[in-house]
């Protein structure tokens, strides 16, 4: 479903702030794969997701989604294939618009926007039903401005919006990192339900090793702009945190990574 071939990205080339964030990353996701991504700060996790989403062009390499070469497509055109949830709960929704308006915008992702009504009565009923899945009481607040919701509610709504129109690829960029532990667990649970329901091909960054091990059918660990570990199948099911750290040390020849990973 997703095919990333040897992509590279350097920020601020030729200046003192030059930073090579991706040093030739290749990654192939099969249809229905749920891949968790871990790695320390600056390992290139978010950069990888942003490269796939098309926030800026990559320096070299190719990205294909569902057989379509999207390497040169701008962000809004790639949105046709991709559902996204950001780390910052403020980023995924329009605060000054109503809950139902936000959902209606997401329902039209990748479609031509016309002069037809931005939301219809049938849609409203549909959205109310969908919001019930979240179990946050949002189904009674369809016309509330999203800015009135809590961070957790906004993140859950963003998640629902990302999957509203079945995406070829779901990108989750540490989407529970900014939430308190209880809310984070709830949003993660909703994530699991939504991903399972439509068997969405998913790439989820997390800073929590346990979450990375528990969720998904495959785990990759990034280090210095490369994929350092790639564990899937039975291997992934039996994985423990200690295993993971040991294998990471072997793969990179670095032991400093232990605290770096655990702390970040």
């Amino acid at each position: 479903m997703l095919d990333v071939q040897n992509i590279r990205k350097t920020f601020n080339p030729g200046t003192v702030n030059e930073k090579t964030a991706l040093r030739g990353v290749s990654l192939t996701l099969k249809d229905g794969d749920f891949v968790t991504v871990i790695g320390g700060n600056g390992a290139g996790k978010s950069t990888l997701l942003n490269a796939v989403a098309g926030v800026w062009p990559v320096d070299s390499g190719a990205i294909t989604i569902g057989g379509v070469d999207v390497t040169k497509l701008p962000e809004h055109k790639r949105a046709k294939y991709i559902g996204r949830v950001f780390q910052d709960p403020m980023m995924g929704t329009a605060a000054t618009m109503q809950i139902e308006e936000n959902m209606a915008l997401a329902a039209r992702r990748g479609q031509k926007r016309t002069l037809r009504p931005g939301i219809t009565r049938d849609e409203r009923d549909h959205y109310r039903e969908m919001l019930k899945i979240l179990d946050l009481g949002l189904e009674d607040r369809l016309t509330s401005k999203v800015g009135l919701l809590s961070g957790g509610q906004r993140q859950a709504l963003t998640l629902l919006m990302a999957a509203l129109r079945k995406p070829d690829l779901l990108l989750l960029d540490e989407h529970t990192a900014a939430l308190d532990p209880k809310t984070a667990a709830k949003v993660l649970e909703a994530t699991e339900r939504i991903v399972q329901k439509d068997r969405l091909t998913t790439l989820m960054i997390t800073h929590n090793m346990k979450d990375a091990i528990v969720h998904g059918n495959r785990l990759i660990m990034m280090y210095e702009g490369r994929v350092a570990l790639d564990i899937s199948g039975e291997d992934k099911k039996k994985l423990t945190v200690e295993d993971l750290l040991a294998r990471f040390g072997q793969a990179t020849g670095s032991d400093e990574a232990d605290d770096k990973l655990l702390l970040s």
Partner: protein
Amino acid sequence: MDFLLSFLNAMPGAVGQGLTWGVMAIGVYITYRILDVADLTVDGSLATGGAVCALLISMGVNPWLAMLTALLAGMLAGFATGLFHTVCGIPAILSGILTQLALYSINLRIMAIGDDAAKTKNSLAVSVDRHNLLVSSRNIRKLTLENPILLLAVLVVVVIAVLYWFFGTEQGCALRATGSNGNMARAQGINTDRSKVMGLVVSNGLVALAGALLTQYQGSATVDMGRGAIVIGLAAVIIGEVLLSGVFHNFALKLLACVIGAIIYYAVITLVLRLGLETTDLKLLTALVVALFLTVPYWKGKYFSKPVKPVKKEESTHA
């Protein structure tokens, strides 16, 4: 008593001016509030609308057609600003200033079209006696259908109705999302550059339409008629918001609040003129009014909000 009478006597004029500028204020609302861009093109596009309208009417063209052409000219100006901003990557404020500056030269040329004696002109007069004008301040106190307040009020309602419809469509929602959160809009597949251009086009079209109305209302277009227009438009938007945001929640009513803001603005202007200020003092006054009305909500939030956080802190120190 005399003072009060003369003030009341001037009220129809204030309402007429307020309705005309209200159309302009709605244009400012679209960029300033919905798109979250301060667009300075309007100082130029208001005069462009006026110049185009005056030119066509003086050539004997139907005033409705003249206004439509003025509207299109304004849209073109907004399109130019939009391209500067999105294609050339120039910051929005600077893009507006560039177009506004360019329009000054263009407006001087427009008003001289068809005149063999001059290549540029800084004003063009139209008279209700010689030309077919839709609105004129001359009729402001007449109790007939010629009274401009009537037609202006109808136009305001039509403009609000059309915008209410447009911002409820898929494209209109995309435009609102662009102004609210560009990241979200792009993630939902909205071409935010395109939305911004569209917003600037619609906004400047309305501003030019207001310029066309103003030209007929006051009987002339001048190259300076748009100077400081952005501030008057902002004043109307902000006065309307500060006074009416508690009652007006519907989008159409929010647009109406801009018009009411403009009427209040001109009522206040009329009042201070009666109190003895010169018309040339008005720009100073307008700037102060806008500064004041922008300060009030800011200070309200900063100094007079309920101290939620400090209370929590106290609790934790006691514990």
